[in-house]
């Protein structure tokens, strides 16, 4: 079973993917407590292993180096977590891509301005909100008759998609907005309340009131 050190800042939803996957597989993954974002990842010793200086970054006990959170999560996952058949493995890949290519861009474009860490542009935010509605509608319909995204058990697909939705559910999807999406809400709630997930992300706090935009 894989084991090693994960370099990341705290509360990094990308790092959560690997840490949760390790909970399920039993992989021994420790977050480096000495890591300081903006300092450690600019040092020569870090850049020698991880030339782009990005996190999360992973060093296995056998000195194998990995960047990109999906790769690290994949490395520390059990075989079953990655999909039990060829088709299920491909579906896991599908949802991983969907999270990165569809959910995250929409999430950034809505959440970042709402947290005032990106400039507010009404057109962009309105478009992001529509995109998020489309995403939730798609997932809601997909999860109508399914408990998990792929197969009959939790997989890397559920963890990856749930982690990519964390910031949305935390900051902007207020109760009224998310109310119609019964199935995806049920699924998301199931995932974030799994004991192995709670161990990593803590007790999840849903958005009660969307952040106001600083125009």
């Amino acid at each position: 079973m894989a084991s090693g050190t994960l370099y990341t800042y705290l509360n990094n939803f990308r790092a959560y993917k690997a840490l949760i996957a390790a909970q399920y597989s039993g992989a021994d993954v420790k977050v480096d407590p000495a890591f300081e974002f903006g300092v450690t990842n600019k040092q020569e010793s870090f850049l020698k292993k991880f030339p782009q200086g990005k996190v999360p970054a992973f060093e296995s006990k056998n000195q194998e180096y990995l960047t990109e959170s999906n790769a690290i999560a994949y490395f520390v996952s059990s075989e079953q977590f990655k999909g039990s058949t060829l088709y299920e493995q491909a579906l896991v890949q599908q949802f991983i891509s969907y999270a990165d290519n569809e959910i995250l861009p929409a999430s950034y474009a809505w959440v970042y301005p709402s947290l005032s860490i990106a400039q507010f542009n009404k057109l962009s935010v309105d478009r992001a909100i529509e995109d998020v509605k489309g995403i939730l509608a798609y997932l809601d319909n997909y999860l109508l008759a399914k408990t998990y995204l792929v197969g009959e058990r939790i997989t890397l697909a559920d963890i990856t998609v749930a982690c990519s939705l964390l910031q949305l559910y935390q900051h902007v999807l207020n109760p009224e907005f998310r109310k119609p999406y019964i199935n995806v809400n049920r699924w998301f709630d199931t995932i974030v309340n799994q004991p192995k997930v709670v161990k990593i992300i803590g007790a999840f706090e849903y958005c009660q009131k969307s952040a106001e935009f600083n125009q």
Partner: protein
Amino acid sequence: MALEILAQEKVWLNKSKYADAERVYYEKLSK
């Protein structure tokens, strides 16, 4: 959450702009 750290992450904020442009372009080409 450390907003200052989040602000330093490089994220794709305007993907929809390019996705739309690409779709329109290839729809026109298809015709």
